[in-house]
């Protein structure tokens, strides 16, 4: 059992390490290696899910101690329970489809073997985070993911924006990661163990302040990785990477990691209201911010990126109102429909060679399958019943409603905050999704030349992803699979009547409004573009002003200090000694009589001094 768990993890890791050694021209071998390893992993993880959920083997641990620091042990261990296994399956499935899709998408890319190996490494890092039974091991996976995101976002080395975007993703998430590492250390030292299960089980024995501080530090890392305000700025820029990578980062890995970690360590967050309150406020801000920014983007991928920011905030909101099962449910459905959306957008990019919606239009007839897939994805994103997105979003809103009324867990005003922000975001989501749909697939076709035919592999991936997008919610909830897997059989993941009606009305109104405006001028942008929205409230500029420039200034000062003060002191000593020795060497005339004169003079002076004193 646990060996299978290790294998799920080790196969993509092995494929990655082997893949890095492959020569550039061995693309067929690289494709077979990476896809094959992930396919086996996927099958194994599904088998694990069946076994774990079959109740006989719940909460299975297997660990090897790596190092001991006094009483603290660092172990490499995996923990298999409903939560970790379900998320692992989602990671494997999305990553596998991304790998398959990439084979076709990067057909003309010379560095495909390197790319495939990096994707495998990325996947295995996420699996490490998901399956880890030890906090230090989790941090290791967390950090490898950071490196991989840097490598993959900067994949197109000849695109000038790629490098700054990759550096930004790395540095911004790194800012949060420092908090994350400190949080893990605070927990580990406070609890005397890095074992996740032990820490969460014995949370009552810890001083509340320790837990609160640790949780707040962890939230910094979560905000960084999951692109939550104020560390969300890297995600839209990360769009310069290849589209399948966007799908991978936005759906199953990276941004999901933060939510997963909070769900995993949720007992810690329940000790005091403060961390969840902070998370709730962050979630409310991020939700609206992301949705508003998505409304004004012209680049199809940037619309989806901002939509990810806003949807991840739903998950944070679900966590903030004390229902991790709802958050994880939304994580799973979001993984399916966001991967579908990105891969469909990738097909559009591949066929037209363009990314701006103002240069698209009327693609419905030219790309029927992509159109259908995109429609499914957008409908799930808006949350039209009975698609998966509807149920998971209503689960979050329902939980917020419960909390707001005071009958759920968490603080009531946080519940209200998340609920109101969530409902507003529902409307905004419907608006930007409709805008994307109409601008891309309807209106007059703008392509003069024939579209590039999309390979079957890419279309096939879309079809496979459409299945969970449509069916994950209804089927999962119908037989109580998901709640059981997530260890919360009594939590209502079903829609709440009030919130459902409200969000239905709001999204219907938003869709109708956007459609009505669009009908009047089908080739114009139905949402009048506002610079403040398109630039996401100038948060990049604010960040630049508040953080980047002072930091640069400080860096310059430090460099100057080093150059002129530290180095200056060292070189000054050397120069002074050299000058002094030059002066003194003048005394060495080689003339014995001079020496004798000096000796005599000195003796005379000394004698006079001795007499006088």
């Amino acid at each position, binding site marked *: 059992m646990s060996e299978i768990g290790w294998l799920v993890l080790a196969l993509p890791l092995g494929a990655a390490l082997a893949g890095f050694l492959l020569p550039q021209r061995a693309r067929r071998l690289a494709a077979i290696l990476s896809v094959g390893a992930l396919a086996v992993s996927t099958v194994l993880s599904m088998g694990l899910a069946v076994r774990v959920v079959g109740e006989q083997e719940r909460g299975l641990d297997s660990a090897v101690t790596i190092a001991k620091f006094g009483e603290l042990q660092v172990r490499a261990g995996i923990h298999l329970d409903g939560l970790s296994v379900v998320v692992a399956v989602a990671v494997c499935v999305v990553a596998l489809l991304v790998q398959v899709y990439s084979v076709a998408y990067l057909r003309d890319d010379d560095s495909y073997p390197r790319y495939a190996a990096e994707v495998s490494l990325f996947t295995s890092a996420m699996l490490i985070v998901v399956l880890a039974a030890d906090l230090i091991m989790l941090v290791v996976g967390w950090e490898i993911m950071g490196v991989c995101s840097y490598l993959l976002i900067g994949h197109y080395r000849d695109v000038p924006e790629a490098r700054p975007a990759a550096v930004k993703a790395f540095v911004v998430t790194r800012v949060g990661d420092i908090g994350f590492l400190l949080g893990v250390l605070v927990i580990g030292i406070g609890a005397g163990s890095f074992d996740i299960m032990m820490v969460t089980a014995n949370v009552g024995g810890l001083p509340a302040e320790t837990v609160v501080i640790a949780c707040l530090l962890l939230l910094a890392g979560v905000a960084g990785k999951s692109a939550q305000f104020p560390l969300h700025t890297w995600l839209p820029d990360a769009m310069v990477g290849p589209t399948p990578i966007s799908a991978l980062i936005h759906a199953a890995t990276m941004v999901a990691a933060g939510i997963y970690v909070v769900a995993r360590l949720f007992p810690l967050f329940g000790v005091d209201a403060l961390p969840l309150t902070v998370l709730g406020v962050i979630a409310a801000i991020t939700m609206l911010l992301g949705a508003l920014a998505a409304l004004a983007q012209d680049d199809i991928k940037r619309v989806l990126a901002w939509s990810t920011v806003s949807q991840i905030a739903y998950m944070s909101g679900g966590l903030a109102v004390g229902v991790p099962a709802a958050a994880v449910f939304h994580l799973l459905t979001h993984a399916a429909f966001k991967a579908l959306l990105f891969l469909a957008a990738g097909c559009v990019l591949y066929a037209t060679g363009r990314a701006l919606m103002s240069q698209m239009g009327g693609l419905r007839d030219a790309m029927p399958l992509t159109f259908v897939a995109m429609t499914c994805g957008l409908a799930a994103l808006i949350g039209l019943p009975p698609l998966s997105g509807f149920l998971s979003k209503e689960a979050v809103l329902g939980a917020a409603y419960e909390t707001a009324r005071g009958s759920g867990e968490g603080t009531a005003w946080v519940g209200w905050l998340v609920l109101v922000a969530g409902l507003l975001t529902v409307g905004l989501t419907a608006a930007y999704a409709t805008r994307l749909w109409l601008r891309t697939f309807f209106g007059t076709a703008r392509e003069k030349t024939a579209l590039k035919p999309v390979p079957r592999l890419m279309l096939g991936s879309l079809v496979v992803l459409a299945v969970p997008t449509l069916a994950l919610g209804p089927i999962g909830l119908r037989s109580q699979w998901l709640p059981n897997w997530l260890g919360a059989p009594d939590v209502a993941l079903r829609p709440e009547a009030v919130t459902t009606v409200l969000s239905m009305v709001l999204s219907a109104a938003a869709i109708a409004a956007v459609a009505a405006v669009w009908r009047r001028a089908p080739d114009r942008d139905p949402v009048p573009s506002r610079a403040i929205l398109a630039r996401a409230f100038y948060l990049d500029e604010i960040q630049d002003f508040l953080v980047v420039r002072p930091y640069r200034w400080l860096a310059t000062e430090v460099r100057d200090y080093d150059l002129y003060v530290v180095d200056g002191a060292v070189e000054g000593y050397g120069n002074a000694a050299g000058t002094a020795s030059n002066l003194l060497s003048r*005394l060495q005339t080689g003339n014995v*009589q001079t020496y004798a*004169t000096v000796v005599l003079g000195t003796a005379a002076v000394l004698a006079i001094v001795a007499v006088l004193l």
Partner: protein
Amino acid sequence: MHIELAVVLAALLFSIGVYGVLARRNAVLVLMSIELMLNAVNINLVAFDVWLRDTLHSGQTFALFVVALAAAEVGVGLAIVVQVYRLRATVAVDDLDELTEPANE
């Protein structure tokens, strides 16, 4: 007797010696100046020996030692001077500045 006469004579002699050592260019003259200084000391030793009426005559004994030492020193010194003359064809002390520190830059 008046010790002052002997002491002043010795001081004059010594000063002449010092001047010779510091100022004369010829190495042989420098050696001779050293002899002058030694003998100035000898005069002091003998004079104080008499003036203090030392029963053991240690001053005179020392003077004898110094004379012997001076003889040995002159032997070695002159040998060096001769060798220097053979090598350099000069005995001017200020020309023998092989050990000068060459000035940096």
